[in-house]
């Protein structure tokens, strides 16, 4: 009796297993039967993969090229802070074109940074001698350029790059000056004063 039960159970197991295997085989056979169609699908996917990878490469290459141009401006700004003390620019608004406007914004950023350095030193050392003031100015310029954080954000939909310069002021406010690059050209600038905020 026990032997018979074991035998029946074995047969049932075999039937279930072969049922599963048949299901597997049928799926595999469906693939095997459509070899021509499968090859066509694979060829299409390979072509699509190549195209897609190429597109991704173009987007990231464009961002990298923009970054090279952005870094040149960045070096210019740092150099300006470290080498200049004179500021105050006059601009004739009636004849301003886009390029001049962007250039103007950059000058504003540079002069803002410089005047911030000067104001800070004037406030901190109102009675100091010229040499002390000069020394303090150099130190603060170094601090500011060290403290300023520069980041690059990709706008992948448009292959653009946003270069953002952050610098924190003594009152806790943070200034963000951003420059938007497209095809290695500066196309827009923006300035924002922000404050850390927890919701």
């Amino acid at each position, binding site marked *: 009796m026990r032997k018979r039960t074991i035998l029946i159970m074995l047969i049932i197991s075999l039937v279930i297993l072969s049922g599963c295997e048949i299901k597997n*085989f049928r*799926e*595999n*056979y469906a*693939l*095997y039967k459509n*070899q021509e169609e*499968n090859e066509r699908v*694979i060829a299409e*996917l*390979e072509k699509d*993969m190549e195209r*897609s*990878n190429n*597109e*991704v*490469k173009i*987007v*990231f290459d464009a*961002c990298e090229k923009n970054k090279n141009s952005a870094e040149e401006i960045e070096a210019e700004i740092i150099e300006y802070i470290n080498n200049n003390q004179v500021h105050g620019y006059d601009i004739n608004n009636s004849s301003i074109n886009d390029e001049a406007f962007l250039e103007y914004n950059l000058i504003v950023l540079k002069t803002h940074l410089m005047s911030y350095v000067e104001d800070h030193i004037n406030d901190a050392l109102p009675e100091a001698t010229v040499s002390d003031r000069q020394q303090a100015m150099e130190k603060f310029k170094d601090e500011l350029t060290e403290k300023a954080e520069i*980041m*690059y*954000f*990709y*706008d*992948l939909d448009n292959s653009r790059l*946003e270069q*953002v310069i952050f610098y924190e002021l003594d009152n806790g*406010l*943070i200034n*963000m000056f951003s420059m938007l690059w497209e095809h290695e050209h500066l196309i827009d600038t923006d300035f*924002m*004063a*922000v*404050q*850390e*905020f*927890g*919701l």
Partner: protein
Amino acid sequence: MKKIIFLIITISVLAAIGAAIFYNEVTSYAMNYNLRLSEIQNEYDTRLIDFEKDKSQVINHLQEYAAKGKASVKCSINDIKVTAKEDELQLFKVHYRTIDNYIINKYIAFITIKDGEITKTENFKDLQ
């Protein structure tokens, strides 16, 4: 009689061998096909796909974050950009605004994401 039995056994064995060969061919073709498909999938440059995935996660997170505790707050995303991946970390910069009882506030959030998980959120209010 013996001859017939022998013939039947021979035919059965040959049929079994043939079936095994066919089974093997079908199975190995299917395995090979699936392998090729997964290889193609692996060769896709996933940078943009990853970015889109992370982007939607960042947006969802921010909308929940902005509306935290207040059902009336509506949050809209104005601009979202991302840094290049460094040390497996990516930083998203999101300009967004909230509207609460007709009061509009503008914010910038910096959201750090690592392996698809948000690890840090910094939030700033636009003072202009």
